[in-house]
């Protein structure tokens, strides 16, 4: 009899963590400046134990100050988007839901674009802070209009999110149409998702939100299973559905806000990673949430590594890679594994 136990979740999490570490190691050895793989890894491990033996000063800077922070950031964002996508799919009971479905991302984009147009993006944290603020404001507005009598009706919330998202998209197009050529390039790259805005300090800002949000969602993962079976079922089984929904919606929105604010709108990760993991490991959120986090992190780090090396020294927006690789892979999964019934 197959049941989800703590041991099973732990075992799979450890295996996927090993995969993640491997992806990070490969990622830091790749780039336009060639640093031999073993020297890169030696630089990393020596810095962890506090030594400074291996490599030249330049190589150390490239590995430790550029590639490693970028990989870690991509990891946090990949994990965050995957988990919030999984949560939105369960909460809205909609297989097409993704982290951007409630318009949070459009709010982040408006914040980011305003920052770019006002020249705030030249300050190191101007861009992420402005876009985080935009996302948070959007969350407030969507939940203000999306709730009725203190209750969240998924369809009402979805509608509020989609409509506010469309309104913000109009703003985005307006800003694009009045912007200058150099700004335009920055805006377009941000909209396609790009880690070249990333800095080590950006990690420090977003990781508490992503970690906290994922943790809150994980604590409710058993209740999320019941909500996925239907809200009335969850009530029948003693779940305080409205409270759990509010906590989960807000956690997932906060994760999305923090993720997009540092790297723009990276598409596809939040849609296909939860589905892929679900197709292989089943729909139980106690296993799905940690697994999706680790797989999502690995996937986005790998995608970003491709994005910055494939046409090196030119960097592509990472969103191009996630869609180009993720789409066909997901189709393959759909064809070979059991198809999501309602899709």
């Amino acid at each position, binding site marked *: *009899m197959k049941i989800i136990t703590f041991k099973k979740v732990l075992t799979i999490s450890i295996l996927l963590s090993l995969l993640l570490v491997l992806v990070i190691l490969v990622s830091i050895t790749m780039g336009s400046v060639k640093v031999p793989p073993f020297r890169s890894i030696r630089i990393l491990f020596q810095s962890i134990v506090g030594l400074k033996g291996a490599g030249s000063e330049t190589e150390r800077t490239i590995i430790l100050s550029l590639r490693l922070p970028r990989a870690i950031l991509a990891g946090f964002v990949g994990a965050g988007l995957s988990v919030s996508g999984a949560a939105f799919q369960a909460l809205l009971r909609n297989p097409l839901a993704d982290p951007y479905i409630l318009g949070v991302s459009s709010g982040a984009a408006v914040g980011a674009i305003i920052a770019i147009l006002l020249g705030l993006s030249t300050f190191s944290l101007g861009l992420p802070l402005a876009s985080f603020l935009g996302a948070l404001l959007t969350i407030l507005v969507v939940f203000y209009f999306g709730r009725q009598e203190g209750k969240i009706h998924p369809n009402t919330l979805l509608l509020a999110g989609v409509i506010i998202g469309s309104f913000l998209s109009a703003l985005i197009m307006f800003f694009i149409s009045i912007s200058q050529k150099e700004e335009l390039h920055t805006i377009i790259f941000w909209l396609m998702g790009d880690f070249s805005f990333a800095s080590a300090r950006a990690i420090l800002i977003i990781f508490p939100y992503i970690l906290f949000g994922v943790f809150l969602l994980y604590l409710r993962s058993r209740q999320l299973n019941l909500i996925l*079976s239907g809200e009335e079922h969850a009530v*029948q089984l003693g779940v305080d559905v409205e409270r759990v929904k509010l906590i989960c919606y807000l956690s997932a929105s906060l994760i999305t806000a923090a993720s997009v604010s540092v790297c723009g709108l990276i598409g596809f990760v939040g849609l296909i990673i939860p589905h892929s993991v679900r197709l292989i490991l089943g729909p139980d959120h106690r296993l799905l949430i940690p697994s999706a986090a680790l797989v999502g992190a690995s996937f986005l780090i790998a995608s970003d590594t491709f994005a910055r090396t494939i046409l090196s020294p030119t960097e592509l927006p990472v969103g191009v890679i996630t869609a180009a690789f993720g789409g066909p892979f997901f189709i393959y999964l759909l064809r070979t594994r059991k198809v999501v019934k309602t899709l």
Partner: protein
Amino acid sequence: MIEVNSISFRYRQEWVLQDVSFRMEKGEFVGVIGPNGSGKTTLLKMLYRLLSPQKGEILFELVPMKKMGRTDIAKRIAVVAQETQLLFPFSVLETVLMGRSPYLGQLMFESEKDLEIAKKAMEWTETLSFSDRAMDELSGGERKRVFIARALAQEPEVILLDEPTANLDIHHQMDFLDLILTLNREKGLTILMASHDMNIASEFCDRLLLLQGGRIYKIGTPDEVITKENIARVYGCEVWVDQNPFSGMPRINLMKKGVREEDETLGRD
């Protein structure tokens, strides 16, 4: 065990239930019948507090239900309602284990003991043999039995059933109702079943509650409730009521238009 004291409920303007009162004793098998929109499902939803009445109150073993916690209710009252669409299907065992949810509290994982209880529930309902199958691979009858297993895993005192035999063929209807009757007689579970099928309600239930427009029209034994006159008044149609020759319970016979007129002469017999 359950005492419903003149409850009324409305969603917006119109009252869906008005001044409904009745009592259920431990171990009873009660049927709720009535036309579409008479308030059967709403009444059931009140009894596990998915909805709360605007007037009146419901007592469960003398405790007002609005003072009970959600998990307390789920430990004592299980529900098998009309199914929702399965988005990402769980396995049979996973579904039955969900019945342990009210006992887990803050715990994340089920224990060995929970697994034992789930297995027992699956033995009762003969679902153990396909415990690893996904819910969307089952037939309607199998799925119904899994939901009964989930209800049993809650170790409840009461099971509420909403149209349990809808969408089942007669073979599976009989199997299902025999199972419910066994649980009622052997495990002493109190059962409340809302049903459209008056012959089933008459055959299996100890008492029937006939609803009309949100009010109780008649409450009593099947003999008292299922009569030609009551059916005509509540449903507004002519049927012929006789007795099932084997069980002696009242039985409804539907007739087409031409035959219905002759029924008048039969009635004077």
